[in-house]
């Protein structure tokens, strides 16, 4: 049965729900927003109520952290009900201009940041980057991510990985400016048609490259490809998995040391959704002098930073403490000097929170690749 001909109830298996409340119980945003995802799963059964439900402001509070889906005992994905309601709003055209522009930009330029496609590879300037060509065999085919490609704050992730790869002699290649958005945020914003198109086009695009595997720099692309691209003909991994392999083979040698306390924040798209917990930690532990701390709420119990679910383009109405702030305060209480992450969105939300709290002097938020970049031998 095609998605269109299914009712809401069938599409999201609403009758499978036993109203146990595990979804809402685990939802991180309940401490600051009115969102109760269980009630949406319950109420969406009544078709005549859907329009009213779609107009509830809180459907935009969901960060797509997927905690509700991971915890649901009956295999539902409660957040998808919210995304389905968002889709109704998108279809009606009554969306915030920020969202509209981001989606428009994906359609026209292949990225949500309203940047020109031609500028996608600008970050490569001055670097010796190997570029992939369709049909030419390569072991690791890198997918950069729109945010890392365009946002100067996180471009270092890509730059440093190129430096490191050139150093270790790993067989790799990057895509040129034909690389297009994975659609992670398009999906969570509820633009179903555009997302379907991206999946189709990107699948065809990737399948022409003869690579052993695709390596993503952002966990959002990593999980999106793994979950929503059933026809990709190669496996997709996150770069921390590749680097951890190299580390275990003894191929990563660091110069200098970092006598600091580092706490790692598990990105939802890498940990809860991707099941990758140990690799980023192993990499951090390999930095000479570094001491790795753990949040009380780590790994499977990690707290979301509110970076996903299209939240980059929709402001929450809540004035209560942001989860990223909670996270930074927890890090401060632990005595951490560095909050390390492995996701460009986490860098942006957590750094914002840190600055807002005025901890800039004593603390730093850094992506793992930013940190490692400092220890690559010249």
């Amino acid at each position, binding site marked *: 049965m095609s998605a269109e001909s299914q009712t809401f109830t069938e599409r999201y298996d609403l009758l499978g729900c036993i109203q146990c409340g595990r979804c*809402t119980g685990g939802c991180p945003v309940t401490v600051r927003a009115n969102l*109760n995802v269980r009630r949406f799963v319950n109420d969406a059964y009544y078709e005549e109520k859907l329009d009213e439900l779609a107009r509830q402001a809180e459907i935009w509070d969901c960060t797509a952290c997927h905690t509700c889906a991971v915890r649901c005992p009956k295999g539902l994905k409660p957040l998808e009900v919210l995304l389905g309601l968002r889709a109704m709003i998108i279809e009606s055209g009554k969306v915030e201009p920020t969202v509209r522009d981001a989606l428009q930009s994906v359609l026209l330029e292949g990225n949500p940041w309203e940047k020109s496609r031609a500028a996608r590879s600008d970050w490569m300037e001055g670097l010796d980057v190997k570029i992939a060509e369709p049909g030419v065999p390569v072991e690791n085919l890198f997918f950069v991510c729109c945010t890392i490609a365009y946002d100067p704050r996180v471009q270092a992730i890509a730059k440093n990985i190129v430096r490191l790869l050139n150093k270790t002699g790993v067989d790799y290649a990057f895509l040129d400016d034909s690389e297009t958005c994975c659609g992670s945020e398009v999906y969570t914003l509820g633009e179903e048609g555009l997302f379907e198109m991206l999946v189709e086009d990107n699948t065809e695009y990737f399948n022409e490259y003869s690579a052993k595997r695709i390596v993503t720099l952002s966990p959002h692309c990593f999980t999106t490809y793994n979950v929503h691209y059933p026809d990709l003909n190669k496996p997709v991994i996150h770069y921390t998995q590749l680097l951890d392999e190299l580390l275990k083979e003894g191929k990563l040698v660091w110069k200098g040391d970092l006598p600091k306390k580092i706490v790692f924040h598990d990105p939802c798209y890498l940990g809860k959704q991707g099941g990758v917990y140990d690799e980023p930690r192993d990499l951090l532990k390999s930095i000479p002098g570094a001491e790795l701390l753990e949040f009380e709420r780590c790994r499977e119990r990690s707290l979301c930073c509110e970076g996903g679910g299209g939240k980059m383009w929709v402001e929450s109405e809540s004035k209560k403490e942001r989860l990223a702030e909670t996270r930074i305060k927890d890090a401060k209480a632990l005595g951490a000097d560095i909050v390390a992450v492995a996701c460009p969105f986490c860098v942006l939300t957590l750094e914002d929170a840190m600055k807002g709290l005025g901890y800039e002097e004593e603390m730093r938020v850094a992506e793992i690749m930013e940190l490692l970049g400092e220890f690559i031998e010249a």
Partner: protein
Amino acid sequence: MTEKPKVGVYVCHCGINISATVDVDAVAEYAQKLPNVVVARTYSYMCSDPGQSLIKNDIRELGLNRVVVASCSPRMHEPTFRKAIREAGINPYFLEMTNIREQCSWVHEDKEEGTAKAKKLVKASVAKARLLEALESKEVDAEPAALIIGAGIAGIQAALDIADAGFKVYLVEKTPSVGGRMAQLDKTFPTLDCSACILTPKMVDCASHPNIELMSYSEVEKVDGFIGNFDVKVRKKARYVDFGKCTGCGDCAAECRVKDRIPSEFDQGMGKRSAIYLPFPQAVPAKYTIDPESCLFLTRGKCGKNPKCQEVCRAEAINFDQEDEIVEFKVGAIIVATGFDPFDASRKPEYGYADYPNVITGMEMERLVSASGPTGGKVKVFNSEEEIEPKEIAFINCVGSRDKSVGNEYCSRVCCMYTAKQAHLIRDKIPDANIRVYYIDVRAFGKGYEEFYDRVRRENIRYIRGNPSEIFKRGNKLVVKVEDTLTATPLEDEVDLVVLGVGLEPRADMRQVMDLLRLSQSPDRFFLEAHPKLRPVDTATEGIFLAGCCQGPKDIPDTVAQAKAAASSAMIPLARGKVMIGAQVATVNEATCRGCGFCVNICPYTAIELVTVNRFGNEVEVARVNEALCKGCGSCSAACLSDSIQPKSFRDRQILPQIAALGAMK
């Protein structure tokens, strides 16, 4: 075959089960015209007394010598109709069943399609029925003894019943003592009898019963044979303690060099034991055992100057030269009563069981409230800073049950009630504690259960509807992240102690027994019974029965009831002293058999062996079937390259015309 086949066809309505989707009259009319069919009739319930009489009368009056019954699955009523035609004087194997219920009416919606298919199937059955041969089943002697694997309450009860009836019982228990999980429980719901008080007498009985041979610390290694005649091989593991000499005084354990350093399995790791140990004070047999994994002498070859236990044992019972012993015996029936494993709570990392000492399981709580437990019955927990008496206590139901995310879709049936029981016991011990139970649905279905639940709530135990999602620590409190679904309020509930109501899982080591006895699993991975309603303690293999939680989660009353049922079923062949063996077995055409042995290797019941025969003066090998072991599955026939081995009633010359008949009709 000299006699001309005269076939009667009987089409069953099965009430409206069949007739609603299959035009039974049209099928009978069609059958009437098939070759060799003398009569075709329909009836509302063919299996009923009048239905059977209809067939019997026709046999007598019309001289029928073949019968086709078009009704339900042969698994259901083949024996019924075999018996009926035998009573009317024809060989019971002159019967062919056509399944027009499961294969037609239940799977079709369109009556025309259903009817057309039913006609086809009947045509095929008639084609085969004409070619059936007369078969005789044989009787062999049955050994008047039973093997019971596992000595929890299920195994103990079954053993006592069979032994009391006068038969020999071999009771094999893997651990050093009988008792199983029930021995670990404090009080039992809903009556709150003390578990040890009602269990210990039975444990003692099964050690002293003249008809029971108890083999503790033993495992079944091999089972061959068939109902009435199973050959069993058991390995009695070395205890390194002379069973005859040990007086159970415990001097050895008191002096053992690793005393109080080894986690006690019985106390769920919360208490400690020595390397030489009795699992718990009331253990049966009351004989000590040296744990080879933790004994200094057995792991490192050295325990001080001399093994301490040996030095202090006045009975001179310690014997490090002891070896495993293999014993072999014969039984007529087997009962599997291997029980369950509690769900491993670390498989739900969001509950922090592996991280926090004050997140414990229901099994641990049983030991904690028990007067004989590691704390002497005081409910004390370590909140990772100090030992405290908890005041804020939360129970969580359905941990590891009803949960697809851990692969267990079933309800474990006891956790709602044991949670209520434990809440009650804590209320007694800590009167001012705030106790809440987080639940999804409360399942209090047994006798006296709802009443018990009513009572417990009125003891100021709060039942909050919502299944917690996460537990983490804040200061020295545990935070339970949960939604009160009745008021739609997300909560961060701060408590001192969380008790996880872990469910029951199939044992992690069940495969060994499964392979040993060729048992199957149901979708929930517990052992599969032969029929969920009508043969609940039987397995697909005759003479092998199931009892207790190895078949699925259940409470003690249901476990005991099932154990008694398994015992009485197992006693049928023992009491008769004889068993019938199947007639539909494979036969070998020795003239064409090449002795290649393909069938020997393929037979899942090891029923075939190669024997040497004299063929025209030459010694040649040919296959021979042990008819007592053969189940007529046909695997050998499919493997044989020269068509030399074929099951009776399913020979090529019988089933090929049947298949041809199916194909020939549009």
